[in-house]
């Protein structure tokens, strides 16, 4: 197995009783990779993400992050090693401001939790960095507003900003454009275009517009297996893919 990969998955398997939800899945993400994971509903995309992030324990196979095995590590430990995800449904602290949502993540990244004394200055720095990151996302205007008051598109951007603030090596984007009204999707697209080039990114997406614009490689999952993989052009021409997936929901 190559240690040069940011993320390397071999033979990943998971079954719930008789139901096989992941079988012999292999996947490599090099640093800077832009890979899309697609597949019809029930193909096992969410299961795959849960296996990677540690919310589910696989029955077999290996997951390595920069050559280190993630076996037995809890989700938060994987995050601390650089495997970070965003959520299909926003998971934000609704009562806090956008800036504080980010600052809390930054404080966690920098392990400030157990400072019971003189934490004021560190917290100030966390908030400064949060402000800076909001500016990079071009959403600084939302900094002082509580998350539950933000438009959905802004919340999606905040999800991405939080994930980036954790300095990931591998970023899993779970349907970043899900639920965003069409007039706001362009903002999400631009944010995706601006993601740092050195981060390996796996995007799970239904929206083919996003997939073909963003991904350099596409992996198609069906019934828990990798059905096909290749360049966007090759995938869109693949008759098997058309049969299980694209045929049912035209591009």
């Amino acid at each position, binding site marked *: 197995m190559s240690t040069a990969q940011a993320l390397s998955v071999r033979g990943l398997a998971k079954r719930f009783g008789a139901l096989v939800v992941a079988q012999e899945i292999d996947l490599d993400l090099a640093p800077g990779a832009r890979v899309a994971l697609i597949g019809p509903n029930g193909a096992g995309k969410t299961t795959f993400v849960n296996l990677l992030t540690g919310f589910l324990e696989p029955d077999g196979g290996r997951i390595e992050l920069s050559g280190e095995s993630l076996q037995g590590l*809890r*989700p*938060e*430990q994987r*995050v*601390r090693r650089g495997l*970070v*995800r965003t*959520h299909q449904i926003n*998971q*934000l*602290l*609704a*009562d*806090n401001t956008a800036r*504080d949502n980010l600052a*809390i*993540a930054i*404080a*966690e*990244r920098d392990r*400030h*939790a*157990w*400072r*019971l*004394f003189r*934490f004021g200055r*560190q*917290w100030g720095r966390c908030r400064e960095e949060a402000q800076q990151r909001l500016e990079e996302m071009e959403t600084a205007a939302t900094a002082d507003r509580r998350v539950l008051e933000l438009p959905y598109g802004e919340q999606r951007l905040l999800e991405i900003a*939080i*994930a980036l603030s*954790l300095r990931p090596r591998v970023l899993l984007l779970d349907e970043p454009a899900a639920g965003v009204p069409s007039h706001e999707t362009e903002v999400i697209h631009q944010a995706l275009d601006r993601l740092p080039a050195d981060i390996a990114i796996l995007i799970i997406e239904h929206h083919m517009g996003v997939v073909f614009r963003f991904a350099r490689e596409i992996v198609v999952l069906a019934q828990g297996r990798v059905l096909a993989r290749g360049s966007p052009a090759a995938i869109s021409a693949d008759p098997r893919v058309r049969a299980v997936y694209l045929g049912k929901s035209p591009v």
Partner: protein
Amino acid sequence: MRRARVVAAIGHVLPWAIAVAYFFAAPADLDFGTQVVIWVLFAMSLDLALGYAGILTLGQAAFFGLGAYTAGLFAIHLSPDPLLGHLAAVGVTALFGTLTGAMILHTTGVTLLMLTLAIVSVLSQYANQATDLTGGDNGLQGIRLDPIFGVFEFNIFGRTAYFYALVVLFGWFVLAWRIVHSPFGRSLDGIRQNPHRMRAIGTPVWWRLLAIYTISAAMAGSAGAVSAHATRFVGLSVLDLLTSGTVTVALILGGTRRLYGGFIGATIYLVVQDYSAKISPFLWEFVVGGLLIATVLLLQGGLLDLGPAVLRLRDRWQAGQRK
């Protein structure tokens, strides 16, 4: 901004000033004052677990009772030194909090609530059955204490007990204030709102909850120890479910997540109980119940929200006048 600061400063000084003034103003009622201080501390311990971290518990009496029995038994069997006894009670309840917390904090919601109920019920039954140790129904009697620092004697006037309770409360308050404003406290606030989000940014949620549960347990145990020392008696009621319920009502009445909520909630609860009970033994529950319903329905932040709520009403009324 300056005005807000002045208001905040007054808000900080006022409760403590009242507490000290009470000592001089009501020398005959210091026992009552001591009870209030103990319950303020008890409510504050619950605020950390329930208010800030969102740990749904009705088992806080387990720690209060365990602290009281530990302090009482320590004084009878090991040493009459009140400070050593207090430390022992804090240590034992912290340990008990860690152990029980480790068993139950992976659960949430009703499951967690039931488990906390189970723990306090088990302790209560044990204390009831182990009459040789606890005195059972008769309570733990014969507690004798040395003077604090060899100087301040516990006596019927209750002066020592009152200041002892107040100093203990102040110490815990300073710690609690630091905790809730620290990054640790902010992470607890995040865990209460969305544990999934916190795990996704790398927060070890279970450990954080265990930490605050342990601190909360130690604080409640400390309140129990002060209770045992102040009254030189421990009755079975300290482990009663009703004790858990009472402290919850006191906290919600005053307002959660403010630290000062317990101050006002426990005070009002005990004062209303005291005054109403003098008129009719059944009246006080009626009054407290009515007060609780009114508070929950009208003031989301508890009685501490009364001032701001009145100001909002005034602003709205004035805005209406201008139209």
